[in-house]
């Protein structure tokens, strides 16, 4: 069935309407931003967000049941409107992807149109509303009458609707509290993302922070500015005791590698003294001209300066700071009802306590392995279950798409 002339004209009109509608929404949003002097939208929290959400759903369902024959509603639940809603939304996301956001020094025009803080701007809000309306009406239209054939469609579309709906409304209820705690210290408060102090319904004591690091790496660099020369293979190799490596015509031997060392007038010696550093004793001989250089390299620390081995006028050998393999905090958490929990908090393994999730976020990287500070993030996200429902629906829908594509 080819598009007939009538159908083509109707299509064209629907797309024109879609384009104009999107443009209208964008401009309205920008106007609202202008009026509010670029302050943007706030995020509603409980109970306001639930009230808004429920009202929206009720209005959608009401309009779908009683006004479904209205042309405007039919248009809203058809593909051209979907495409224009997705396109408007994509346009805003594109700007987010191209320009740094939330810069307080952004030029006025970007701030007053909302483009410098799109995430909480009126254009984004209105675009989201357009998307939720068009998508919501589409889902309602396709679910009555309900047939099993539509299950793939419904999973994908309703799932996405739930994710956008819960993500937008739930954002106001999301709490992120950053806790910085030193060994033997107990905290029950932290900083939230608006830099306000926030109290938590439990206390947290850092018993011990441990970190395990990879061996540092040997780096072949320009002596002048410590930069990496381009096009030289092997110029960054992990250091191991007794290792032999060839870099740019130099044969380098790691005669000694001390993961924990301290420096005196004769060089480095093994030491588990606090603030010790990794060090390596190298012998480098040039294959072409037979020059030999011997000496220590070390990445240093916040206390000790780094040590380099100069090979010639242009290049030197250096040691990089070791990178973490794992790090974790042994913590004791006491809840309001007197329950004591001892736990080893690791990255990728959060702890759930009193409705909050605790995450091992980072540590004092300047002190490296001597860090006595652990940075833990406590997060409360009451809408998470709804988001997960939406995500699982879309995943099921993706599997369905996979099936469809097979024929």
């Amino acid at each position: 069935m080819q598009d007939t002339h009538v159908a083509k004209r109707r299509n064209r009109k629907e797309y024109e309407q879609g384009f104009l509608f999107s443009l209208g929404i964008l401009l309205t949003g920008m106007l609202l931003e202008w009026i509010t002097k670029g302050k943007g939208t706030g995020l509603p929290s409980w109970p306001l967000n639930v009230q808004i959400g429920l009202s929206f759903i009720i209005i959608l369902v009401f309009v779908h049941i009683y006004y479904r024959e209205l042309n405007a509603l039919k248009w809203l639940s058809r593909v051209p409107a979907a495409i224009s809603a997705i396109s408007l939304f994509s346009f805003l996301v594109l700007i987010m992807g191209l320009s740094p956001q939330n810069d307080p020094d952004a030029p006025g025009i970007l701030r007053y149109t909302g483009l410098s803080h799109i995430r909480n701007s009126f254009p984004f809000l209105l675009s989201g509303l357009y998307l939720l309306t068009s998508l919501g009406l589409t889902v309602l239209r396709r679910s009555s009458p309900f047939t099993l054939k539509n299950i793939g469609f419904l999973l994908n579309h309703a799932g996405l609707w739930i994710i956008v709906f819960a993500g937008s409304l739930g954002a106001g209820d999301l709490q992120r509290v950053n806790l910085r705690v030193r060994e033997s210290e107990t905290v029950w408060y932290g900083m939230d993302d608006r830099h306000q102090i926030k109290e938590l319904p439990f206390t947290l004591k850092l018993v011990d922070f441990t970190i395990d690091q990879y061996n540092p790496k040997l780096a072949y660099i320009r002596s002048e500015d410590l930069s990496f020369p381009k096009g030289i293979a092997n110029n960054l190799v992990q250091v191991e005791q007794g290792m032999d490596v060839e870099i740019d015509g130099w044969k380098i031997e790691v005669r000694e590698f001390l993961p924990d060392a301290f420096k005196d007038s004769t060089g480095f010696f093994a030491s588990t003294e606090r603030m010790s550093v990794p060090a390596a004793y190298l012998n480098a001989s040039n294959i072409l001209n037979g020059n030999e250089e011997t000496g220590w390299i070390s990445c240093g620390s916040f206390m000790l300066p780094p040590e380099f081995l100069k090979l010639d006028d242009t290049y030197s050998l250096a040691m990089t700071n070791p990178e973490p393999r794992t790090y974790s905090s042994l913590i004791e958490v006491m809840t309001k009802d007197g329950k004591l929990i001892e736990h080893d908090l690791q990255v990728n393994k959060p702890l759930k306590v009193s409705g909050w999730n605790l995450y091992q976020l980072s540590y004092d990287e300047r002190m490296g392995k001597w860090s006595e500070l652990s940075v833990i993030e406590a997060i409360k996200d009451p809408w998470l279950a709804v988001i997960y429902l939406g995500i699982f629906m879309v995943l099921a829908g993706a599997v369905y798409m996979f099936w469809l594509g097979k024929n």
Partner: protein
Amino acid sequence: MAGVLLVYAGKRGSFAENAGILLTAAGIVITGIFISILWVHMERPPMRTLGETRLWYLFFLPVIGLVFYLRWRYKWFLAYSIFMAWIFLLINLKHPETYDKVLMPALQSPWFVPHVVVYIFGYALLGVSTLVAVKGLYLEYSGKMDSSVIRLADNLVYFGYAFLTMGLLFGAFWAKKAWGHYWTWDPKETWAFLTWLGYLVYIHLRYRHPHRVRWALWMLALAFVILLTAWFGINYLPSAENSVHVYG
């Protein structure tokens, strides 16, 4: 890779064709063995750097090409996918990596492998669909359009999109475990989302206007540009400097 030449020769004789298929399969197996050895040597999944992900691309592309050839006998498709794999191979040979064992704690997660693999597979499928789109546009503009071409593109996009969706959502699950929130509008996430939206528009265009082939093909090409930006273009964008996904 010499299998491609033989497959073309196979237009005439079925022995050449079978030899071609075997050679291609052998090439795939050898690539697979290389990746396994690398994995064991590095003591971590080789999926962190751009070069390592290119390796997987050059593994999956011939797989897809071969499967589609065996199922639907698209010769030119097999040739294209192996050609693309060659390009990645050459790039990798020209930029030898320092294969380093370091894997930061955030990446040590059971989600690391599924998230990356699913994305690479999805990107491979969508990349191939773009090749099809280019061929389709060429046929369109020279008046020799064959509807099987756009149907092939559709199949590839449906498969690829399913993987893209899974990749996006796996990433969200992992982000929740690692940094506590499933979505932070990080540049990589933003561009991955844009890619997802781009192909979403394509799918809707195809659904509603199955005969507007030209629009669809151009949309496919545009969506791929967005995909490329999400894949490595962000390493060059100023807004992406602070992304948690930029590892080099």
